[in-house]
């Protein structure tokens, strides 16, 4: 006992312990982390198992271990499909930080691989929309003019004319789409997260969805007229007219008036 205790109190012991721990962590990471070369969109059985574990650790406290949901707390996830999981977890909305009118966007909590594992497990519970392919969401393949027509008939009443966002009732809101990725836009249309209605493929065809993405992507070119003032319409324009335009001019009247002859 005495000898062991003495060795444990050796001066180098803490350093050795840290080194040993580092080696252990690196080893586990090297074995556990799937190599990127192996990643594929097809969900394997392993992914489903890993997804179930992640779900139990991070989501089950609200949605239940069987993902059936709880009344008044969280909805059932059976049949929502991989697209919904990719959207909700991939934009950081889930896991939800605090209950409120609406789950806001926040830093994403999982790696893309983990999100796909979660999606694979949820998709295995019941058939639902899948994550769209790269071609389906490619803005270059869409028609922005048709996208404009689809967008303003179906989306603009909540998200604003070019997707700058807008308010809904009781503290809920339609978020700005100007920073959202094409895949997430597509998934949102397909699954109708939170207050948003579902726009299924019969309602808005996959081609029209891609046109909408092309229209929103076109907005990243910026406004031809200069700075867009938030692209929220005449209210911000009026505020700027008073504060900047009239403000500068009144400041100059005071300057001219101060130079009294």
């Amino acid at each position, binding site marked *: 006992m005495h000898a062991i205790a003495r060795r444990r109190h050796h001066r180098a012991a803490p350093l050795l312990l840290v080194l040993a721990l580092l080696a252990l962590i690196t080893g586990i990471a090297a074995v556990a982390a799937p190599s990127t070369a192996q990643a594929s969109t097809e969900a394997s059985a392993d992914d489903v198992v890993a997804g179930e574990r992640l779900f139990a650790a991070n989501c089950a406290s609200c949605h239940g271990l069987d993902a059936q949901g709880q009344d008044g707390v969280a909805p059932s996830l059976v049949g929502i499909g991989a697209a919904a999981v990719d959207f909700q977890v991939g934009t950081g909305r889930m896991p939800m930080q605090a209950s409120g*009118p609406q789950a806001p966007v926040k830093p994403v909590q999982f790696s893309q691989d983990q999100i796909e594992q979660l999606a694979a497990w949820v998709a295995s519970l019941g058939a639902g929309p899948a994550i769209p392919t790269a071609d389906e969401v490619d803005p270059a393949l869409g*028609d*922005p*003019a048709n*996208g*404009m*027509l689809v967008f*303003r*008939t179906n989306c*603009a*009443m*909540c*998200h*604003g*004319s*070019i997707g*700058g*966002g*807008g*308010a*809904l*009732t*009781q*503290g809920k*809101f*339609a978020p700005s789409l100007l920073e959202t990725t094409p895949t997430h836009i597509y998934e949102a249309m397909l699954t109708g997260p939170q207050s948003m209605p579902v726009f299924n493929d019969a309602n808005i065809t996959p081609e029209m969805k891609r046109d909408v993405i092309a*229209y929103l992507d*076109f907005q990243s070119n910026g*406004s*031809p*007229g*200069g*700075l*867009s*003032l938030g*692209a*929220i*319409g*005449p*209210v*911000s*324009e*009026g*505020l*700027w*007219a*008073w504060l*900047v*335009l*009239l403000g*500068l*001019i*009144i400041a*100059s*009247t005071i300057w*001219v*008036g*101060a130079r*009294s*002859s």
Partner: protein
Amino acid sequence: MGAKLDRAASGTANYVDERTSIGGFVKFFARKIFPDHWSFMLGEIALYSFIILLLSGVFLTAFYVPSMTEVHYEGPFATMHGVEMTEAFASTLKTSFEVPGGLLIRQIHHWSALLFIAAILVHMCRVFFTGAFRKPRELNWLVGFTLFVLGLAAGFTGYSLPDDVLSGNGLRIIDGIIKGVPLIGTYTSYWLFGGEYPGVDIIPRLFTAHILLVPGLILALIALHLFLVFLHKHTQYPGGGRSHRNVVGLPLFPVYTAKAGGFFFVVFGIVALVASVFTINPVWNYGPYDPSPVSAGTQPDWYILFVDGLLRMWPGWLFGLPTEWELWGYTLSLNIILPAVIVPALFFGIIALYPWIEAWATGDRGEKHVLDRPRNVPVRTGIGVAFIVFYVLLVIEGSNDIVANLFHLSLNDITIFMQWAIFLLPPLAFWITKRICLGLQRKDRELVLHGHETGTIVRYEHGEYVEVHEPLDAQETWLRVSYENYTPLEIEPERNDHGVARNGYRWDRFKQRLSRFYFEERIEPVTPAELEAARHHHGGASAHGKSDAAEAESADKRLDAEWNELDGDAKK
């Protein structure tokens, strides 16, 4: 060379003068005296933004096609390729993207339109708070007010011309308001739109109103407005030597012509700067008009927001009763005409008639050419601030969705808050402003009677402390004592000695009540007798104290010097 030029100039002037006798006018205008203050330039901002509007507007009419004929877009803007639209919208896109400088001119036009109304309002506030609307200028106040209303009309008719979704939604609301007027509403709407909304007539009609009718009226009224300014002479801020019978200032030529001319370019420069940096009314985002889509953030330009605010605030049910009635098969939309017609009409009516309301309360029939300091008319200043608060609350309610989104608030809570605030905050603002004004007047009295504090305190040998006050100079005193001291009206009794009721008693009683509301609570200006007494009492002590303090200070210095001398000797 110089002599040649001079000869040519005087020759031309002489030639013109001999045929028009214009020399007298030029002399009259050039020698017209104007007082100097920066706040007198606020109206100029409105005038100059109107000139910018005329200049840029002429450019825009060269490319705009006021037609609702359907075409397919073939221009360069990607999100409009092949989209069906009216010629009005297509020509707006063409002006923006194909005409060189077209977008800049469009943005200059729209920014200066927003500036035009804002400058008119600020100018109106200056006139209101300084009492520049009093006799003989009541009619000019009315002309200015009409210009404000015409400015709104010019803005609204122009806003709709591009025929985009946003302005179309605004037009639809106007159509709804017109249809909400009982009996004549539906007919008026049909007459205006040439049939059921939207029809194909409204754009050409709005165009005529926007480029001919409304600007023509504005131009005529501006001429009248300025003519009356020349006729009445300009008002001046109070000060020594300024009275209701003179104007202290500088002649129009050369200083003011240079200042005003230069100021036009300052305004134009700032408008051009803002227009080249910030997008305004991006119709290419909204798309061509189609009655079905409405986008979030659909609002009018800021000057119509208050009507939108009233509509958004008005409850559908009031005390358990609906605000929309159906009587004998006819719908009576009180929920539209009350917020969108009656309340704005009352609000504007009070503003238009304000000079007369105040004249009833003062009973003063003299001409007023010296302005009031806002503190010296606490009730008027309070009413003005209450009106501003009322208006700003409506503007905020009109943008309630933007406010909710920006500050992460509930849209519903904002509306409920505003429904209470619109009744509670304006009276509160009135009361606070009135108290502040009365406080400032008391401070003025203090200053006049006791002078400025100098921070010097003198203690006498017998232990008394005296603070030295510096009396105000003549200009400072004049500014603080020379204001109208109105007292509530005294009226003749209801019945004469024979017990016969007097005609006009009720009207007199109304004026008396109004007058009491204005002048019951007031701070009297310092009278010469009070000033004399205060000078005698305080000034004496203060003057003594001052000389004693000076004496003590010199004694101090002497002692210091002696001490230093002794100190130096000791060190040696």
